[in-house]
């Protein structure tokens, strides 16, 4: 732990470490990162690993497209193989209404330059003959969507920033932000005090609490999402498959295991990381129905993590109005892993140049909540 830092980042998840990585790349020295537990202990280590560009809001599409570019060269840039697999994403539609929505989404996404298409039921069946598509009408398909191992990605960033000289402190909690006359002067941790003028809140599920440390009321809250992994079997499934109707996402990892999850009906609020048997009971019938070969597949482990949710299910990336140089990158609403490379880049640019350069994220600020918000729909 260094006594004085140019930037203090609170949170060693994928977002915090990505911000640190990009800052260091831009030549910033004396960066401190504080992580209260181990690297990947937060949502990042618990997430599904999906990397999707098919969103209903333009901002999400743009950030995701930029991230896919960065994920592709992750191994070269960051220095570790993160099991990145560009196997596409298949989104399933079950009604004419849903097909119509999908058609509109595809139009918008193509305007953004995304390589995405509508598929008929027959086309889907041809690609994935092992699926049972009984009630399915059609779907959308983006071959450049991908998935990767989020835990390794997080640790890869952590190892890279250590090599780059970042002061990374795990098992160290930030307990207070020292503000004098609307300016940050330091950060108090349970292991000591650091002087600094710049703080990044990348606290994931704890973004609201860490906001309050600086008297900033960030409109985020956390809710529990459950997930499970199966035994490993031969590779059959390339893409991540999502069904909003049946409420699931599923992918097969490099090791052959399937990872899948859903949104619980009444998710536990806050950072409760327990698990329920109802989750297994709800997942089992729909997976067996849509993927009959899974009937005898073994479930190896279930766990849960927090979605840090914002009012419009899009991230909030901004600098506080009342505290100068208090920056936050939070509220990822269940898709922060995939956005992290682009977000880290944008936030680093905000800190160094005063505004993001590569991707315009100006409309992800807090001010948007003053108007009527446009909610992202494609969320599981």
């Amino acid at each position: 732990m260094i006594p004085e830092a140019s930037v203090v980042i609170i949170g060693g998840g994928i977002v915090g470490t990505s911000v640190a990585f990009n800052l260091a790349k831009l030549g910033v020295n004396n960066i401190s990162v504080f992580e209260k537990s181990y690297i990947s202990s937060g949502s990042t280590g618990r997430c599904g690993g999906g990397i999707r560009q098919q969103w209903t809001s333009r901002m999400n599409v743009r950030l995701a497209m930029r991230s896919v570019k960065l994920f592709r060269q992750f191994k070269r840039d960051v220095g570790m193989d993160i099991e990145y697999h560009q196997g596409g994403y298949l989104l399933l539609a079950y009604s004419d209404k849903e097909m119509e929505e999908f058609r509109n989404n595809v139009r918008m996404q193509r305007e953004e330059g995304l390589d995405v298409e509508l598929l008929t039921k027959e086309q889907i069946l041809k690609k994935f003959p092992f699926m049972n598509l009984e009630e399915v009408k059609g779907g959308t398909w983006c071959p450049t969507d991908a998935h990767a191992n989020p835990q390794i990605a997080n640790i890869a960033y952590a190892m890279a920033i250590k090599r780059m000289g970042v002061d990374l402190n795990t098992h160290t909690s930030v307990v207070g932000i020292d503000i004098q006359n609307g300016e940050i002067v330091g950060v108090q941790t349970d292991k000591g005090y650091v002087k600094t003028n710049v703080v990044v809140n990348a606290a994931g599920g704890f973004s609201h609490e860490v906001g309050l440390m600086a008297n900033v009321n960030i409109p985020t809250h956390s809710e529990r999402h459950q997930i499970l992994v199966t035994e490993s079997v031969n590779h059959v499934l390339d893409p991540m498959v999502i069904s909003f109707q049946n409420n699931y996402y599923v992918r097969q990892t490099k090791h052959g295991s399937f990872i899948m999850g859903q949104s619980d009906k009444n998710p536990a609020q806050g950072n409760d990381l327990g698990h329920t048997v109802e989750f297994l009971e709800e997942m089992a019938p729909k997976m067996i129905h849509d993927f009959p070969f899974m009937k005898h597949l073994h479930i190896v482990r279930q766990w849960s993590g927090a979605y840090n949710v914002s009012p419009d299910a899009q991230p909030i990336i901004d600098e506080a109005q009342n505290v100068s140089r208090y920056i936050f990158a939070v509220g990822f609403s269940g898709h922060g892993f995939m956005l992290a490379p682009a977000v880290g880049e944008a936030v680093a640019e905000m800190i160094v140049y005063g505004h993001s350069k590569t991707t315009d994220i100006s409309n992800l600020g807090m001010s948007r909540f003053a108007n009527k918000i446009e909610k992202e729909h494609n969320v599981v």
Partner: protein
Amino acid sequence: MRHYEAVVIGGGPAGMMGSITLGGKDVKTLLLDENDVLGGQLVKQTHKFFGDHAHYASVRGFEIAQKLQEEMAKDPNIKVETSATVIGVYPNNLIVYAKDGKEFKVTYKKLLIATGAMEKQLPFINSDLPGVYGAGAVQTLMNEYGVMPGKRFLIVGSGNIGLILAYQLIQAGAEVRGIVEALGKIGGYEVHAKKIKRLGVPILLNHTIVKAIGDESVSGAVIAKIDEHFKPIPGTEEEKVVDTICVSVGLTPLSELAEQAGCKIEYIPQLGGYVPIRNERMQTSNPDVFIAGDLSSIEEATTAMIEGKIAALEMAHNLKSTDVENEINDEIQTLSLFRSGPKSEKIRIGLEKFGINVKPVPEIERHGVQIGPQGKLRAIIDCTEEIPCNSCEAVCPFGAIHIGENLNSTPVVDYDKCNGCATCVIACPGLAIHMLKEDVENSTALVGIPYELLPLPEKGQKMWALDEDGNYICDAIVKKIAKYPNKTNIIYVEVPLEFSQKVLSVEFPKRESPFVCRCEEVTLDEIERVIDSGITDFEEIKRLTRVTMGPCGGKNCKLVVLGILSRKTGVPISKLSHGTSRPPVKPVEFSLFTKRDDSK
């Protein structure tokens, strides 16, 4: 033509003990055996024998043969002919044997046949390829002639012979790639099985050999799982790269000479096949002919010797009206004791068919493994299967081990009396006893492991400590090597306290790194490399290497990884975070959750 009061055919333990007993009763006796040395099966056995301490228990097989031979040599009543192959038993008590290319004849008043048994065959594809051997042939080559028939072995059959052969092969420096066993449980003694399991030999139950592979000699073997009808299950075939296949699927009595001598033969599978009918005193349907040992029922050297003695006593009585009643009854009682355990059930059923009932004996007492008082140097005995053996009780100088009258009982230790002398460790034929002393203050434990391999490590050397399945669990530092004349040495190693109850074996560190996590095939090297790169959080190590993330959920390897981490970082295991446990504890099918019991 010569004439003897008694002739004994077969110089194994049964025939030798018979001859010694006959000579002792002043009966002029001739012993014939086809081999150039006496001892029968014993000659090939380099391991310590089980049994009653009064009957050579914990003496190595070939040494028992030497001892018996020394006794015989002292007795002028006994004449021994080796390299003498009996080719037939003819009418009028005539025996014809071949020696040095010449025919010899001899007649007898009473005959003891103790020809032992031969190995059963197992048919499989290419079983005629060079490189497929009977277990006995391999033992003969290896232990008598010092010739190793191969480097990598597959053993078929998990009876005591297969298990012991595996152990002997490892002692001789070979690699045993596995033992396949058709039944759902191990045939031999548990202690023999454990001895090789902790050396890393897998025992595959419900498996058989399908075929041998190779052009001119064996280059591999295909094994497969079998169903309840012993049929290989398609799709479960697996190839083992081996150059030698040892078949050890049981023995069957060599009853031809007995048959020629006019003894009635019956097929009794529990006794091993075709066996001569006989009474409790080993007399066959021909009153001049007696049998003993494996020929009468496939059993043990101990029982063979007792049967040889009973037969000889009865023969002496027939010949000279010597009073042997008490002696015979004593021996019959001892035999009953031997045969009272669960492992002798087959023999008891077989003997009942002859109307021979095992005498009532004191009840068998059963005890689990005792851990004893922490911190004291003491013997830990892992011997919970009822087998006829009492050598630990017999050798303990402090009377700390109790087995009792029925030697099938399992041992119980009085730790107030145990003073840590380790005499039982070196006597135990099953290598089922080790020494333990915890040092709580320094968070270490001293474990004394019986060791019969060569070379011995050196004091201060680093070894790998292995668990009951031969899996690496931690590093161990050799603190002391206690050498003993019976060649069971004890290696005392220091290990972290957490592993004090898991370490059961040691081996020299190998060039290729051992698997720490078998589910995900993560090696010690990989984990050390990750730690060396600066990752010292168990959770991070887990996520990078997948260690503990397999179907077993880390049951087998979590502590091992924490041990490595502790060794490298100097942080005691108790202070390390060990992650969270998540359901399901055992993998379950998705289908489970579609068949719910909703009853209230």
